[in-house]
């Protein structure tokens, strides 16, 4: 991680930990917590898009696989699965997501552009439909309910603030993971893959294997999001990971822009605020028009997402530019 990233992460962490002191319980549970969970899942999409240039619409499905895994390894309303110790369940669920990512990567390893989007979308829809039709494992349309975040000693993680802090920690962890990954040789191989598959091969990497590894790693990120999502909703069902959720996550990643991992969370914030308050801002029947219009404006005005927009604003304001220059200069000294 660069010093600029450390400064950024530290300030974000500080802000997130102080947030409960200045906002309502509603804001914490319905806005902030959802933003973080959505942000984590969107980050797995945005990171893949940025690092290897492939937009995967399978990330929500992969999160859902972790969600189903944690549900099946916990007590649930349908009485399906086997209850496991917490550590086994959590690690198992994240690994399941990683494995699902690897499988997705193997299937999609040769695809690029619109075809990569479509093969991941098809896989995601196929899984969702399978889960909806299957009652033996997935309990069909109704899915699995009654899954609460666990209690660690005396700390009840399902309590609003505890769960929020859990999500903050999860978000910071995946952010650090992605920022760290970018600087490793593997991260550099990813970027080479994005820029020129042939050149990567010339460097001695096997492009398709690198794609699979990348899918596996972002699968782990989506897995973290999936577990938190399932604990947050206390349930998982095919509709939790359906086509509209998949498109929501895509929109979040796009609004945020794919320039910096933090963008996914900024996109999530805009999205959740809109989704929650659109019906207050406008005659309730037409809230979707408002949501669509805002997306349209964001896309038309800032091709690089809000991160790109932010960059342009910074360039216009000398003081901010000085600060950024300062940070980037310290980065160069490293």
């Amino acid at each position, binding site marked *: 991680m660069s010093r600029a990233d450390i400064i950024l992460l530290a300030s974000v962490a500080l802000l997130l930990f102080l947030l409960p002191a200045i906002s309502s319980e509603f804001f914490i549970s319905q806005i902030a917590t959802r933003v973080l969970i959505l942000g984590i899942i969107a980050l797995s999409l945005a990171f893949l898009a940025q690092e290897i240039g492939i937009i995967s619409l399978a990330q929500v499905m992969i999160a859902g696989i972790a969600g189903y895994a944690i549900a099946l390894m916990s007590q649930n309303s349908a009485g399906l699965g086997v209850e496991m110790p917490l550590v086994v369940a959590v690690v198992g669920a994240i690994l399941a997501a990683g494995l699902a990512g690897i499988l997705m990567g193997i299937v999609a390893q040769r695809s690029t552009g619109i075809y990569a989007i479509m093969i991941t979308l098809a896989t995601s829809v196929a899984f969702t439909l399978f889960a909806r039709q299957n009652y033996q494992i997935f309990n069909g349309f109704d899915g699995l309910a009654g899954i609460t975040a666990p209690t660690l000693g005396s700390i009840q993680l399902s309590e609003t603030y505890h769960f929020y802090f859990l999500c903050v920690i999860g978000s910071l962890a995946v952010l650090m993971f992605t920022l760290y990954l970018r600087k490793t040789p593997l991260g550099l191989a990813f970027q080479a893959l994005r820029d020129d598959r042939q050149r990567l091969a010339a460097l001695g990497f096997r492009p398709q294997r690198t794609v699979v590894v990348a899918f596996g790693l972002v699968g782990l990120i989506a897995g973290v999001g999936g577990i938190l999502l399932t604990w947050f909703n206390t349930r998982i069902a095919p509709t939790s990971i359906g086509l509209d959720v998949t498109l929501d996550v895509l929109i979040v990643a796009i609004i945020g822009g794919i320039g910096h991992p933090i963008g996914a969370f900024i996109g999530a914030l805009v999205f959740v605020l809109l989704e929650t308050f659109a019906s207050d801002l406008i005659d309730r029947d037409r809230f979707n028009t408002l*949501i*669509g219009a805002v997306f*349209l404006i964001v896309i*038309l005005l800032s091709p690089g997402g809000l991160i790109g927009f932010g960059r342009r604003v910074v360039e216009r304001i000398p003081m901010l530019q000085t600060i950024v220059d300062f940070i980037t200069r310290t980065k160069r000294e490293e």
Partner: protein
Amino acid sequence: MTLFFVVTLNGLSLAALYFIAASGFSLVFGVMRVVNMAHGSLILLGAYVAFDIAEWSGSWVLGALAGSLAAALAGVLLQVLFFNRMAGSKDQQTLVSIAVSIIAADLMLAHWGGLTYQLNLPSLLEGSIGLPLLGVNYAKIRIVLIVAAIAVGVGLWLLIAKTNLGRLIRAGVDDQEMLHALGFNVKGLFIAVFALGGALAGFAGVVAATALSVAPGTDVQFLLAALIVVIVGGMGSIGGAAIGAILVGLSEQYGLVYAPTYGIVFTFIIMIGVLGLRPQGLFGRGDVG
């Protein structure tokens, strides 16, 4: 055995509907490299307008014309208002079309309500005919559907291969700037392509509203079908779209009858299989990024 043949025929006639829905989408993609996610909205709009006009005039033909025309106009508006201004960025065009489809769905809901709409069949197409050899009755409209799809397919092929507009479209895809420098108004040409793609979408809506029915959500349903068909067949290839439509239509109908529980998953498995083995689709060119 009779059931198998009838189901096959059903699969083919459903494929015909999907092909019509996908043809405009594929055309616009083939020419402009725009993945127009608002294509489903154009289909639904065409159906609604066709219903209103058919109801008002009592004529299915007038309704169908009006529906196609309305969708063509909407397609032109999309091109003029949005796509034209961001010619460079394909991703951005796709995203804009998603945003437009969200708004369009909501506005159409506001105007036409949540009801289901079905168009009156022209009396010529009502009822069923006996199928020789099989000894069952079969709906005329579904036979007509297959004929209509073949007509659309052949018409599109003739248009692209044999007419001056088709030549200009191909030249525009090859080298837009050169065509411009040879004295052609390229913007106008692309508007024409969008009008044609929109008209095909509107016609698909008319056909869907006649053979089945339309309601909120029909837009997404047909967009998804068109996407799958075109992706399996290969973006921008009319022949590919036909093959893709047949694969999808057949798998849906076989699945429905022979494997009701998981049949619905088949289509997507086929799509995953095709793209896994041939990432550019069955008939796609490899140059799509």
